[in-house]
């Protein structure tokens, strides 16, 4: 693997037994894992190309334990990597050889449900879907719905600012979280936000969401819940070209319609998904668009026809409106199977996550095809079309020497292309280790330094999840002094990885 992580601290590795003993004193019983075989399940998250068993795993149950662990590690200069359910696609929860892996899975209780204020207070290890399950009987749900929602934790969602197919209409995690309890690396327990809408001072909660476990460990989350829409209907639209599908998306929005979901699949994705689940997708299309409307029946009926008409005006050959819930779910089954369907095309795939201005879609897909030819690897595209979030899936075979490296290089080229056309490196999966070294494609040194100083305000010794997000590990003291002249960094000797 081409990834370089911070050099393990030999002195810390040498003290491993003492560190394990100290953690056992804080979390007695089964809560500390140090046996090498038992560490193996923790060696990667869902970005399995990168693996590293941690020095030790600790699974606290109470906030006091989290605070004690962090304070102790801070005092001893030991690094800590937080982990939720380990479904990150960017390597955010990748362990460090000389680091403690702090697993939050035992924080699995819902603490409060308040329908009058429309909030749920949950511990961070509660899964995304469990929040909806806890309130659905009363007619509510939690809106952000990453495809991984049966497994991923709400704490991980906060750390990654996760999205889902419904986030154009309902927002990402950040738009749905009202407050957190956070433990800093120094072991201080803080409450940011609450159950009200506005913060009293600086919006620190806003920067915690999406901070990828680098600023603090989230030990409690307060989210907004919404009444479940009365109905949902979907329409399946087949287009003769990606351009016409893209124009349809723009026209739907120009009509003032913000659909609950708007997903585009390219020809290869349609064929792979149909072969995998046989839901009746049209195969004679260059692009397939699924548009979902939700709300009262009167609204869905009105808008679904409007969307179908816009699609036909843009040359859609197929325009099938779901007649019942079963058919709506069938439309989605293909899209949801897009990732597993890749298994029938290639042993491995890398899922990219750039966002682009939607108007550049045809050009981006064309250039992606050229890159695909140049790298000799196939790419399949699924796309959160409403918000311009691309998920190119690069197909490869790890067992072929060099293919992982080629796939990574191809992926990097795609992300650079996204930035070049005015987009970003990641729309919802996070930077982690995967896009870390590409950060300079989007941000200059001064921009990154301003972000890194925020890190210093929370964790001045850089002990919490180091080696993620930022390509260069500046010591905080250096950042405080740093002045960039004519683009020259004053400390060319600092470690970059």
């Amino acid at each position, binding site marked *: 693997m081409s990834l370089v992580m911070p050099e393990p601290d030999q002195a810390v590795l040498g003290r491993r037994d003492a560190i394990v003993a100290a953690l056992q004193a804080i979390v007695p019983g089964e809560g500390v894992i140090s046996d090498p075989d038992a560490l193996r399940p923790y060696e990667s998250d869902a970005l399995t190309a990168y693996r590293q068993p941690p020095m030790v795993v600790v699974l606290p149950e109470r906030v006091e334990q989290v605070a004690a662990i962090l304070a102790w590690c801070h005092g001893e200069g030991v690094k800590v990597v937080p982990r939720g359910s380990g479904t990150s696609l960017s390597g955010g929860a990748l362990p460090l050889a000389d680091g403690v892996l702090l697993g939050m899975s035992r924080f699995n209780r819902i603490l409060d449900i*308040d*329908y*009058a*204020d*429309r*909030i749920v207070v949950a511990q961070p290890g509660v899964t995304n879907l469990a929040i909806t399950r806890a309130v659905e009987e009363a007619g*509510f749900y939690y809106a952000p719905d990453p495809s991984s929602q049966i497994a991923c934790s709400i704490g991980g969602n906060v750390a990654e600012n996760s*999205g889902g197919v419904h986030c154009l209409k309902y*927002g990402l995690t*950040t*738009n749905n979280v009202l407050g957190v309890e956070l433990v*800093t690396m120094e072991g*201080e327990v*803080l409450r940011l936000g*609450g159950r*009200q*809408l*506005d*913060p*009293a*001072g*600086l*919006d*620190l909660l806003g*920067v915690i969401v999406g*901070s990828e476990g680098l600023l603090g460990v989230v030990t409690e989350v307060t989210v907004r819940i919404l*009444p479940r829409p*009365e109905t949902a209907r979907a329409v399946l639209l087949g287009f003769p070209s990606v351009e016409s599908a893209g124009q349809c998306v*723009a026209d739907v*929005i120009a009509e*003032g319609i*913000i659909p609950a979901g708007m997903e585009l699949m390219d020809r290869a994705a349609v064929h792979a998904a149909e072969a995998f689940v046989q839901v009746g997708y049209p195969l004679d299309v260059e692009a397939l668009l699924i548009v979902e409307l939700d*709300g009262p029946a*009167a609204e869905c*009926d*009105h*808008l679904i026809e409007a969307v179908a008409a816009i699609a036909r005006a843009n040359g859609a050959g197929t325009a099938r409106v779901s007649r019942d819930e079963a058919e709506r779910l069938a439309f989605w089954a293909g899209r949801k199977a897009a990732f597993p369907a890749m298994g029938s095309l290639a042993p491995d795939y890398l899922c990219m996550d750039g*966002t682009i201005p*939607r108007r550049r879609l045809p050009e981006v897909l064309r250039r992606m095809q050229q890159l695909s030819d140049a790298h000799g690897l196939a790419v399949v595209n699924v796309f*959160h079309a409403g*918000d*311009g*979030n691309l998920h190119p899936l690069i197909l490869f075979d790890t067992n072929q020497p060099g293919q992982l490296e080629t796939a990574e290089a191809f992926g990097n080229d795609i992300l650079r292309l996204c930035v070049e056309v*005015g987009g*970003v490196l990641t*729309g*919802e999966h996070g930077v982690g280790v995967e*896009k870390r070294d590409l*950060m300079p494609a989007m*941000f200059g040194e001064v*921009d990154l330094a*301003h*972000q890194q*100083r*925020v*890190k*210093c*305000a*929370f964790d001045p010794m850089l002990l919490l999840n180091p080696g993620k997000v930022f390509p260069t590990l500046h010591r905080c003291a250096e950042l*405080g002094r740093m002045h960039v002249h004519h683009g020259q960094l004053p400390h060319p000797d600092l470690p970059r990885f």
Partner: protein
Amino acid sequence: MASLRPTTPAELAEAVGAAAASGGRLEIRGGASKAAIGAPREAAILDMRGFTGVVDYDPAELVLTVRAGTPLAEIERMVARQGQMLAFEPWDHGNLFGWPEGRATIGGVIAAGVAGPRRLTAGGARDHLLGFKAVSGRGEAFVGGAKVVKNVTGYDLPKLMAGSWGRLAAIHELSLKVLPRPRMQATMVLEGLEDAAAHAAMARAMGCHAEVSAAAHLPAAVNDGRALTLLRLHGFEPSVTARCAVLPGLLSEHGPVGLMETGEADALWRGIRDVEPLADAETLWRVSVPPAGGCTVAATLAPHGARWFFDWAGGLVWAAFDGDAAVIRGAAERAGGHAMLVRASEAMRAVVSFQHPRAAGVMALERRVRRAFDPTGVFETGRYLDEADAD
């Protein structure tokens, strides 16, 4: 008072850098519509109105990039022409301080986290700021966020910048999320409810399929003896009609629910947004609490001759209250929220910080974050009354 009016990012960086190097202080200012919020102070003004105009606006992308000194009113007119809106319903504080409307700039609106009734369901300024360009207190130009609606690359600095009240950086360019303007708006109204019943009715309405987008309650004391509970719905005509029809049955225990005439409703919502019912208040507070807490805050203030009304389904209490700040701040805290001092005499503002004090640990962390952007305190003008512990 000295005033600097840069017109390019380089001039802006130069101005801030020079002030920081000489230990000076700068107050970042747009249209000055909120200048009377916070403690009286004597800092040089960094006038941002040299940065105006649209940088990029493609309605279909739902993204608008403008320079920070552009008047809010101009932006609202421009997006309205494209059938779009700033969904957080920002507004001009000029009215509150007896200035002509139209002075507020988009930069000031975002920096003060200003949002109106629709904030309840559409999110606040923070939720609509996608990216920015700014000069930090270090005198360095930097960017945060991006110009697309979905982005998680790096820390979400736009969230930190929205509502930072000019303490971190001088923003000169902003990218905002814009949304389609609803085709239709309707307001359903209940009359004569006491605060507690109004809260219950609003909670009920917010928890049902009607997709109410804004909910406010005007007690009789601030509305010519007529208590009104207002529920606003928007969307496409068939949908709005169907959703309005849900409410009378759902809220029948609270009395009849009627459809309000559009002109009257629009005027009322505008008044609620601009705090008109308390326009004559000497001391004006803005209390942000969990919705159910609004009632308990009001009950605490009642014996003190206060007047108030509720927005955000009860979660925003505007209160005219001339008594001890500790009373209203204590009530806000007990309800799980906080109270901002929006309008008060100079004497009061000189001793009562306009922002609600946070827990010590949070204050210390905020201070470290501020120092990260502004190491010399060039933006610490004396306005916030916590500068003393700002090192």
